[in-house]
């Protein structure tokens, strides 16, 4: 654990982007006293939920040497399916079906990537983009294009409400869900054989295959995890905003990639960690929050995020090998 912290420290020093964002946070603290208020911190914690889930899943895809643009479509589809199923089959089964749909979407992606023999990130990028369009279209067709509001539902939505608004002590329920997911994924990545197989796949697919490492199963695993985590993110997202529109997931894919790269996981595959991604998400959200408090328009925030993404990829490319 000590070593992990040291590693994090190293990546901080290496990563100018992190330093820039930290500087922004310090400036905000000085200029805007509202930043350190309890209400604002709670706000940050709530925003944290959906993005961090999606990003954790994305981390595995990127460590495995690929990329997943389909999470936008997956989130939309899962949100719409889950909400519409609450009335007919009840909330818990609906959530379970939603999670299943997410995992299925990821599984389908992995089969496409595998069967086409795609080796590079670029190939995976286009395939998953296409699948994102497909999933979004299914979401639109399923919902008829309309936004579903939770308050119009007849069924019991207590669990979902608890997920969105409830808290245990000072922690929101969604934050606890996040802690559980993080712990499971961290153990999976660092302590299990499959996690290691994923890292080796990202490091060198050919060498891994020749050593009998299950490369195909790793690829299936990374995309399925990504789809499943996107589904969790989707459910947390609509539980918080209490509506589910068929375009709810738009933009999550780039934000997740941003968080993963800013966290210090390299796009070249092989190396990375879910803990770093949590840092990345935290920084991205804090940045949004700071920019908000400083009165920067949401559009300018998109510009900033885009600029940071470009900068982070550029630096990632320079610092590695």
């Amino acid at each position, binding site marked *: 654990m000590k070593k992990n912290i040291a590693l994090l420290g190293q990546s901080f020093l290496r990563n100018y982007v992190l330093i820039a964002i930290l500087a922004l946070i310090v400036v905000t603290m000085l200029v805007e006293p509202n930043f350190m208020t309890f209400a604002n911190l709670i706000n940050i914690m709530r925003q944290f939920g959906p993005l961090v889930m999606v990003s954790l899943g994305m981390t595995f895809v990127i460590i495995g040497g690929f990329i997943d643009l389909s999470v936008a479509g997956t989130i939309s589809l899962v949100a719409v399916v889950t909400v519409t199923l609450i009335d007919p089959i009840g909330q818990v089964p609906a959530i379970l079906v939603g999670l299943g749909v997410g995992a299925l979407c990821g599984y389908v992606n992995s089969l496409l990537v595998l069967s086409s023999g795609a080796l590079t990130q670029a190939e995976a990028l286009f395939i998953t983009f296409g699948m994102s369009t497909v999933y979004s279209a299914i979401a639109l067709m399923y919902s008829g294009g309309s936004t579903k509001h939770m308050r119009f539902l007849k069924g019991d939505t207590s669990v979902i409400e608890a997920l969105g608004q409830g808290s245990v002590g000072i922690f929101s329920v969604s934050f606890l869900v996040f802690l559980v997911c993080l712990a499971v994924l961290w153990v999976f990545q660092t302590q299990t054989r499959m996690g290691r197989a994923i890292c080796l796949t990202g490091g060198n697919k050919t060498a891994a295959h020749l050593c*009998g490492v299950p490369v195909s199963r790793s690829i299936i695993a990374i995309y399925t995890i990504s789809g499943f985590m996107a589904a969790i993110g989707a459910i947390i997202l609509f539980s918080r905003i209490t509506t589910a529109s068929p375009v709810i997931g738009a933009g999550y894919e780039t934000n997740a990639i941003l968080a993963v790269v800013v966290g210090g996981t390299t796009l070249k595959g*092989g190396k990375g960690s879910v803990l770093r991604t949590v840092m990345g998400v935290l920084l991205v959200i804090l940045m949004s929050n700071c920019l908000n408090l400083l009165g920067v328009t949401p559009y300018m925030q998109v510009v900033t995020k885009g600029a940071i993404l470009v900068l982070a990829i550029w630096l990632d490319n320079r610092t590695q090998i």
Partner: protein
Amino acid sequence: MKIQTSECILSIKDVSKTFPGVKALQKVSFDVRRGSVHGLVGENGAGKSTLMKILSGVYQKDAGAGTVIFDGETIENTTPHESMHRGLAIIYQELNLVNTMSVGENIFLGRFKEMKGMRGTHTSARELLDRIDCKIDTHKLVSELSVSEKQMVEIAKALSFKSKLIIMDEPSSSLTAEELVELVKIIHQLKEQGISIIYISHKLDEIFDFCDVVTIMRDGQIIDTKAKVDLTRDEMITKMVGRSIENEYPERPQNVGATLMEVRSLNTRKLHDVSFTLKQGEILGLVGLVGAGRTEIVRAIFGADKTDGHQILINGSAVRIKNPNDAKLAGFGFVPEDRKLQGLVLPFSVESNISMASFEKFTKFGFISKSKESEIGIRQAKALVVKTPSTKTPVKNLSGGNQQKCIIGRWLENDPRIFIMDEPTRGIDVGAKYEIYVLMKAIAEKGGAVILISSELPEVLNMSNRVLTLFEGRITGEFNPQTASADEIMRAALGMTEGSANP
């Protein structure tokens, strides 16, 4: 031999080149006379290719070390492009053509404007190809050509620069006998046109056939430069191989036992009905040209490539191997041809590179035990004397020999019965080579068997108990290297004789 500079097209003096950790060339000097065919011989790793790359400008020689005078001009810090325009062309083993473009455009690559467009390009290309009696359509894509046709295109390209000196790097390494005759004809034509040629090869026949002067290199140094008529074959071989031959290799394994593995009728796109046996305690060498199917055989056996049906029997019982994991479980070990691309996960630590083929030993219920993994890493690194600051060091920081040891150690952890080694000593310094030979021997003597593939014939001949020759995807002979001559074996590997001289 002192020659006037004006008579020399190229004169190299005291050129040295150092790579990190390796002295590739030490004070190399020789002259090439105008209009001569100058043979350059030496074993793999003798420094021939490095020297050529310095001449062409791909590498730069060590600063201040020696001079290169080409056609009366002293050359410093050149680029491939510059030297081409100066009239010095190199035809590499790995051919320098853009596969996706036509023959004509490849000849005039980057000179479209000079040729006044597409039509001019193709007319001029036609003229050049006619000069060497080559019938290839200039509109054909290079990817559709055979290796020898590609060589013709390269020669035409060299002519297009009005080259005064053409260097051919192992041009015959993947040619059939008839194609070689064609090439020799062209070389004579070029000579008549006053063009000098440096012909690099390790096949003595060719050198004796048509070279005027021969330079022999070994270990980055020039051993001798002599007119062919003053040189005997034996003299040349002795100078090429050097006196260190006796202690370059350990003794080969002694106790060859019963049949361990039998491969029956292995067929793929490139292999035709390959069958052979492997005996316990032996090292089996595979000899053949690049592309003859050596690597294809071992990859197919190992389950890395698809086959069109074959049978493998280990100790008499059939084994099905669909992928490398099956092969691993069946007791195979595999050192792939390309260490960096196929063997190592470069950014990962020595330890995880060693442990990656033996997950079973340090996982329980799918969970990794880091301490057990460390043990494996340390054990193998120690056993093979891997020179590394720690087993946590990224493997990319190690030297080639130590990297190769990591790959071998990775498999030794599984105690493999059948160890496949594809070019295990490529790009490794002499000391580490010897250590790897000793390891090979140890595996065989512990009751396993080794299949050895190498482009360095002496290595195969000195280490193997038995040698199989391959030509165009077929086994063309089986030899006992202790009794058969290198010549006989090479002839079979070139497809010139069928049949075998069984041990």
